[in-house]
């Protein structure tokens, strides 16, 4: 039964990785922007939730509700002031700008909060679990996976059922022609990054409840998120969820064999899948 337990833990961990990756997938799908600061922005959101929770004495879930609009604004501003200026000229400028931003955020957090690791305490819900047959599942990991599924479903609804989603898809297809239809691509991009930051905040909430975090953990989360996006196939949100679960399962099995192999197993699963399926499992967009 230990294997069944490992599989379940892996799938639940995958939910967290899918949350890390969903914002990245959205932004890449719409504007082909690879945001190397995404991991650090998730960590920034975790600190923001922590600060709100401590200052107002709120539960982290309530604090996250306040953090959501703030992070949307941060995403909107980053896109308007920074990323939009470097989108037009090849892949290098956006990569370097987001890489610079990553270093700035990481060290800014280090300066303000020190290197001590922090945690969001959500009270009794953290330790409670339900028994499903022979395995027992934690409530918060279940909520994480549930949130990932709901968010990806919502993003898909937004994408395919609303006027904003139509604008997203049209801008993604042809950012010049949409301007003839009265859409301003840069505004669309700013909204998209804002939404990505909202998803990042929810990811940060579960990250902070699940484990300790400190300013230096952003880049590793970025790698897991990218692995999930690439495994899933560029531009497919459900693919990103599957990609997250693949990484979660690989890490969980790696850790079951030897705790030191957890991260390594995830990376190797990513490499192997990419060798056989260079465009991921469910490719939708071509890059």
């Amino acid at each position, binding site marked *: 039964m230990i294997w069944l337990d490992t599989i379940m833990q892996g799938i639940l961990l995958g939910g967290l990785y899918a949350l890390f990756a969903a914002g990245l997938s959205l932004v890449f799908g719409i504007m082909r922007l690879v945001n190397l600061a995404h991991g650090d922005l998730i960590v920034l959101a975790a600190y923001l939730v922590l600060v709100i929770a401590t200052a107002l004495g709120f539960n982290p879930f309530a604090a996250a509700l306040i953090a959501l609009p703030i992070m949307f604004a941060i995403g909107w501003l980053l896109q308007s002031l920074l990323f939009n200026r470097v989108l037009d000229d090849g892949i*290098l400028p956006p990569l370097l*700008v987001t890489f610079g931003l990553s*270093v700035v955020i990481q*060290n800014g957090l280090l300066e303000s909060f020190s290197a001590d690791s922090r945690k969001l305490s959500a009270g009794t819900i953290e330790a409670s679990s339900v028994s499903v047959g022979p395995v027992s599942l934690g409530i918060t990991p279940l909520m994480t996976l549930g949130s990932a599924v709901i968010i990806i479903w919502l993003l898909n609804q937004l994408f395919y059922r609303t006027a904003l989603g139509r604008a997203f898809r049209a801008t993604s297809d042809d950012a010049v022609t949409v301007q003839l239809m009265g859409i301003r691509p840069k505004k669309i991009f700013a909204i998209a990054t804002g939404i990505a930051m909202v998803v990042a905040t929810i990811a940060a909430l579960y990250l902070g409840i699940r484990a300790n975090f400190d300013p230096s953990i952003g880049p590793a989360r970025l790698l897991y998120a990218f*692995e999930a996006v*690439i495994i899933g196939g560029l531009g497919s949100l459900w693919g990103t969820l599957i990609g997250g679960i693949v990484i979660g399962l690989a890490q969980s099995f790696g850790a079951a064999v030897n705790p030191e192999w957890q991260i*390594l197993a995830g*990376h190797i699963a990513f490499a192997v899948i990419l060798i056989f399926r260079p465009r991921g499992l469910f490719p939708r967009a071509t890059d």
Partner: protein
Amino acid sequence: MLPSPKSVGRFTLCLAAIAMGLALVAAPFFTSRAIIQDMFGLLTLLILAMNWNMLAGFAGLVSVGQQAFVGVGAYVMFAAIILFDLDPLLAIGIGGLGAMALSVPMAFFAFRLNGAYFAIGTWVVADIARLVAGQIKALGGGTGTSLPKGTSKEMIGVDHIQALMKISGAAAADALVYWLALALAACTLFASYLFLRSRMGLGLQAIRDNSAAARSVGVDPLRLQLAVFVLCALGTGICGGLMFLQITRITPDAAFSVIDWTAFVIFIVVIGGLGTLPGPIVGAVIFYALQRAFADYGTVYLILLGAVGIGTMLFARKGVWGTLASRFGIDILPLRHRAPKRTAASPRPRATSVTASH
């Protein structure tokens, strides 16, 4: 015939370069050991920067995994010294070959990924290398290991230098690794120049500027990019060995540090001028000066560096050197090819000839 003003400029420039080169070579004879150690640090940064500039600035390969080559170069060197008792000089060379050996499967994997995803692919491979290095128990696993005391003093040639210059063994070892770094930097610069001026280099820049057009005139992108990737792995790996011979202690996190061996290097090249040969030199000097001035401020310094990098991308995309060069029309180490001259007898060419420029 009198030399034209332009060739006089080039002649003075050549003289200045030679004088500068001689001064750098002779530095250990007339400066203190501390300055030599500082200059060694500057040179190793420069080597890393020149290699990354070849990849990102000329071959269009934006690697965020250079720490893989530094780390493997250093780890293989440590293994050769500690486990096989080889001479450090030989061990550094083997370390470089080790990095080169990693670059082939890494290219096989990462070249499948387009553009920005190539960056992530190289980063993941570097992280795999870091985690695997942490599993090597013979080299201390995750906590790392140190070189035996006095290893660098036993290098071939150190005793000669010691006798010649009448200095301590440690100072002689510092002088030797300084000269090695200087030679590696000079080789990298010279080889980059020759390569970029060659037919292959022209093809490489054509790929970077427009891959489809380059292919249509018969340039094979994969072969050229692979060649550059593998050679840059060699240079970066040797540099890693040199640096860790001086550091004398290795851990997976230090040897495969993305901040130290890739992020700083990217900022150096971007600030100095991406895609130009003098850019990394200018960038390394600026970076080093900033580091000396602000190192005490730690994190604030890094925030400043990141901000300067972002600012460069927003407002002066060509970097310090590129901006100066285009404003004043200077072009040291030019990579432009002049169109073939038309003689009076030859007919006017029908189609305009294609000139490559950066």
